[in-house]
């Protein structure tokens, strides 16, 4: 049934949010973001399959999502490396120069 599929992806998405908000290390943060992206992509495919079975748009979009996820992780990692080199740690809680 559609609702159970959507609930699952929603649950995955919330876990991703939990991960983003609590992880202290930047890498952990990226991992949770990946999780959220994957849940969103799943949701797309589910809706395409259940509601618009005759069309392919959902899946095409998922491919784009996957491509974007890749690009995002790459940039994330590059920044992470730079950060690590500067701060000698990837603890997100120390990055608070934007306070005021």
């Amino acid at each position: 049934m559609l609702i159970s599929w959507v609930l699952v992806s929603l649950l995955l998405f919330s876990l991703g949010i939990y991960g983003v908000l609590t992880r202290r290390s930047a890498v952990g943060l990226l991992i949770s973001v990946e999780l959220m992206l994957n849940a969103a992509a799943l949701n797309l495919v589910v809706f395409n399959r259940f509601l618009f079975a005759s069309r392919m748009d959902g899946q095409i979009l998922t491919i784009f999502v996957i491509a974007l996820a890749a690009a995002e992780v790459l940039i994330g990692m590059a920044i992470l490396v730079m950060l690590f080199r500067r701060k000698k740690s990837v603890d997100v809680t120390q990055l608070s120069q934007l306070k005021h």
Partner: protein
Amino acid sequence: MIFYLLTFVILVLALATVLTRHIFRSAIYLMGVLALSAGYYLLLGAEFLAGVQILVYVGGIVVLIVFAVMLTQSQDLIHDHPSRLRKMLGFLTSATFFGVSAWALLNSHLNKNIEMPSDAQFSAQIMGKAFLSTEGNGYILPFELISILLLTVLISGIVLAKKEKV
């Protein structure tokens, strides 16, 4: 039936990725989740998608994450144990989010038991044609854009991570 099994396993793995203190182990669990969601795609009849998922996600992105974990092997953060307050706040936020969206979903019109239609004809040809067709709902423009995007990301990734001239 398979659906429930798969869901149970994925949820356990997802919980593990989020909760484990050890970053490396969480990367591995992430790989598990992504692989099993490829299974989902198979269940939904999108074989090509499942292949892509396995290839790109699991093969590419997770490997990249593992590299990153190896590279930033700083002593203090092997065990990422967030403070109680952060856990509490994080849990509270995700719980409210889940509660509100689930409540919205259950009350919305999606709640009717919509069965999976049987006559779905998915195939890679149709998807390929759709990617390159120019009229109607063709995806030629996003297709080109995504390629440019990937190119810039590649270059900038290298530039960013280059070691500064000391």
